[in-house]
């Protein structure tokens, strides 16, 4: 019994898509024939430049119905949201002993809780369509340690845990839920890191947003219909 193919009017929502990995993902999905909605919080111009698509404003960390607002808007403009890429993420680094509650809460809210709320809302059209793709952008940090990022590691490890359980809950409806775990990728988030980080990367280079986007594109494709609950590391061998 093979899986149902992607419906024609299927729409993808990529959160945090003004720049970096999110922007590359939006472009890759558009190239693959998805209608794409790009969510942004602060950089409207960046989001609009990303791809010829609709840019929807909203801070994913806002508990007041932002998930419903973003997805409903896309449904009206394009069609049912059948792919969700939870990419929006922030850092607020500090050693645990010095990390205040606000730094902890902000990172958990944006990187984990928001992804849960978006996923919960997106399940409605996906279950109805008997087709769906949720891709959570996790990190090598979480599965492995990174001093100064207790909040980020907790959120990203949490995303991987959530990925597995939600995948098991909805698998029989043709909805897959996977994670990608990027290593060091050349984006604004990593531009201040010293070259010595490459000591722990067997490939001896940083990755590109496009390399992460290619993994997301695969997981969103019809070809990946039997891949669910997994985490695809895009890290130059860092986790090997």
């Amino acid at each position: 019994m093979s899986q149902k193919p992607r419906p024609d009017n299927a729409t993808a929502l990529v959160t945090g898509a003004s720049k970096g990995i999110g922007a590359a993902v939006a472009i890759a999905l558009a190239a693959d024939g998805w209608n794409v909605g790009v969510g942004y919080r602060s950089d409207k111009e960046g989001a609009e430049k990303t791809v010829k698509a609709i840019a929807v404003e909203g801070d994913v960390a806002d508990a007041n119905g932002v998930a419903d607002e973003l997805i409903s808007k896309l449904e009206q403009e394009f069609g049912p949201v059948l792919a969700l890429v939870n990419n929006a993420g922030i850092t607020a680094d500090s050693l645990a002993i010095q990390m205040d509650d606000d730094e902890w809460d902000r990172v958990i809210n944006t990187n984990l809780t928001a992804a849960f709320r978006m996923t919960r809302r997106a399940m409605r059209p996906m279950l109805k369509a008997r087709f769906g793709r949720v891709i959570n952008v996790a990190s090598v940090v979480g599965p492995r340690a990174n001093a100064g990022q207790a909040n980020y590691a907790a959120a990203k490890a949490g995303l991987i845990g959530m990925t597995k359980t939600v995948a098991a809950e909805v698998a029989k409806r043709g909805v897959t839920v996977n994670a990608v775990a990027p290593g060091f990728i050349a984006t604004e988030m990593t531009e201040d890191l010293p070259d010595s980080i490459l000591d722990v990367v067997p490939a001896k280079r940083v990755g590109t947003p496009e390399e992460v986007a290619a993994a997301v594109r695969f997981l969103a494709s019809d070809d990946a219909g039997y891949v669910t609950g997994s985490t695809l590391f895009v890290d130059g061998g860092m986790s090997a």
Partner: protein
Amino acid sequence: MPETVTPEAVETTVRDALVQFGPEAEDIKLESTFEELDVDSLDLAELSQIIEDEYGVKLKGEDVGKIKTVGDAVDLVVQRAG
């Protein structure tokens, strides 16, 4: 949203939904348990979404956990909508 929610209308909605999840229409009776019909928790969650869209009645996980038969589901929706 219909102005009056009759047990008959709700029963039709529930039956139409359940058929999509696998059971044969003739096997679905008010006294049938979801277990007998092989209707699982995801099916019931989806049934709840259909009920919410149709009647504006929001059923939570704990509500759904208590209902065992097709008749229980119909009664709960009628009661909440009333």
